[in-house]
């Protein structure tokens, strides 16, 4: 269980994490979702005491992380792949880490084979690919068989097989009653892996709750209609809760009304419909809706002239 109270981190005038309060419960996978620069990594670094909070506090299983007698069996953390001396072999890296807690070579070899590193365990880490580095980071996080697992972007750089493996692993660990807290900027990955979501943007929690609920709340259902009498239908539909957009002649995109309502309204007013389709928003759209006001690094819009140029 991880509990944060008013957790704040400022770097000079810049506020990276802005007074966030949350609880990560054991027995489920909690996803920490947010765009780049939203404060995910900073929050995780504060949990394990690498960064000192400017204000507020965070505890793991009831105590600040540094006060545990056995930090590695309490928390396993992957905070950045390759927080590893490049001149050392993967196995020696894990041996040195394990030695701090008197963990034997048996467990070292166990996590090496668990993470599929057997073939490269004796090679120097400097030559590792991003994916192998990520696996080594996960191996290091698992070395103490920890009650709580904190993984920052664990699937970064992994191949599809590796992504699936991480997903199954964290779900299995959570099913054993452990606390699993993992971050990602990929909504689709989170939708598949996390039971619970914590969405962060510009250092603030903007949504939290069960994954399905968070996605449903952020997903907009729209109705697409094609009709030769599109403008008549649009006039009939427009109301305080309903917006109608038209991106091509004869086609409407309706927000705020169901396909049933639209169809019945059309029938009652003898409007011919060529198409009537309910459209549920994609995860990406939901994510954009959630975070649109809190993205740190906006990619600028493509200028209109340019798109027209391309269209021609």
């Amino acid at each position, binding site marked *: 269980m991880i509990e944060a109270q008013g957790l704040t981190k400022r770097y000079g005038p810049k506020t990276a994490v802005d007074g966030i309060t949350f609880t990560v419960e054991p027995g489920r996978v909690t996803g920490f979702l947010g765009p780049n620069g939203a404060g995910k990594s900073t929050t995780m*670094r504060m949990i*394990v*005491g*690498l*960064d*000192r909070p400017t204000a507020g506090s965070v505890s793991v299983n009831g105590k600040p*992380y*540094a006060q*545990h*007698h*056995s*930090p*590695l*069996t309490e928390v396993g*953390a992957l*905070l*950045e792949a*390759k*927080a*590893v*001396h*490049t*001149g*050392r*072999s993967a196995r*020696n*890296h894990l*041996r*040195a*880490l*394990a*030695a*701090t*807690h*008197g*963990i*034997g070579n*048996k*467990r070292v070899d*166990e996590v090496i084979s668990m993470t599929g590193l057997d073939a490269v365990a004796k090679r120097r880490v400097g030559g590792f690919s991003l994916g192998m580095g990520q696996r080594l980071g996960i191996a*290091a996080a*698992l*070395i*103490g*068989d920890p009650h709580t697992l904190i993984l920052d972007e664990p699937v970064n750089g992994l191949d599809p097989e590796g992504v699936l493996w991480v997903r199954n692993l964290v779900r*299995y660990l959570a*099913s054993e009653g452990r606390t699993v807290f993992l971050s990602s900027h990929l909504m689709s990955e989170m939708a598949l892996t996390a039971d619970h979501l914590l969405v962060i943007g510009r250092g603030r929690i903007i949504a939290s709750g069960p994954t399905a609920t968070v996605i449903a709340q952020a997903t907009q259902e729209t109705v697409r209609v094609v009709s030769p009498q599109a403008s008549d239908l649009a006039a009939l539909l427009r109301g305080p809760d309903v917006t109608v957009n038209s991106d091509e002649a004869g086609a409407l995109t309706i927000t705020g009304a169901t396909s049933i309502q639209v169809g019945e309204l059309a029938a009652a007013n003898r409007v011919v419909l060529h198409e009537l389709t309910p459209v549920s928003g994609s995860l990406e759209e939901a994510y954009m809706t959630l975070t649109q006001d809190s993205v740190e690094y906006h990619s600028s819009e493509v200028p209109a002239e340019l798109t027209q140029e391309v269209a021609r």
Partner: protein
Amino acid sequence: MSAAVATKPTAPPAAKAQGKLSFPRLLRSEWIKFWSVRSTFWTLAIFLFAVVALVVLITLAIHNAPPESQGGPSDADRADPLNGFQAAVFLGQFAVAILGALTITGEYTTGMIRTSLTAAPKRLPVLWSKGLVAGFSMLVFGVITVGLSAALQWVFFHGVGIGVDIGNSQQVRALLGTALYIATIGLLAFAFGALMRHSAAAVSTILGLLLVIPLIFGLVPWKPLKYVEPFLPGNAGQKITMTDAQNAAQAAGNTVGANLTAWQGYGVLVAWVVVVLGVAAYLLKKRDA
């Protein structure tokens, strides 16, 4: 009666890691870290080879030098087995200084320090255990190097009357002092590394202190510098690599500034280490990693 077998889902129960964090375990971890990077082996090998070879070569050069009447060394200098050591150690110390600095800056430049500090979140024990392992290893290696040099020197030159006399407590103190000096210089470099967290900055600082600043002090004829000079880490520390007689001879030629004895000089070097390491420890505790 059939035994009920509880079927547990997949994955075998992990070998329960029972460990608690402790200082001896941190020492063990740092020991593994220290010896599992190639730079450790290479710098120590270079140090050993350079010092042993230089001691023998310099002894040979002194032995073959022209007689005093033709500008060569005096008979006393010629017979002094320690003469070869001081020049060799002056050069050899740089290998150890680089090793000491890299022991900790290597963790900062690679990001390893974050793994180390996550495993031991109280932080300071990481610094102490790392320093102890590096210091101890360098001391042992220093003793081996000095011993091997003295042995080879004796094998080659005892026939012409040059060789360390193990019965001479002054010579033995100077030789063991040489190993102590080497290890302490390594620790000073380590302390600068911990303070600066950057390999190039730490290495150039320690080289500057050992090489460049004494040179500048020697060249600039400004009297206040003479008062500071004996307290530079290299100058002060090297007192312990010399016999009392050699120190006294040096003091006789020096009219300005302090003349430190062997142990006073070494104490000054230790004070440097304590102060720099103290500041580094304070900052380690305070800064974000």
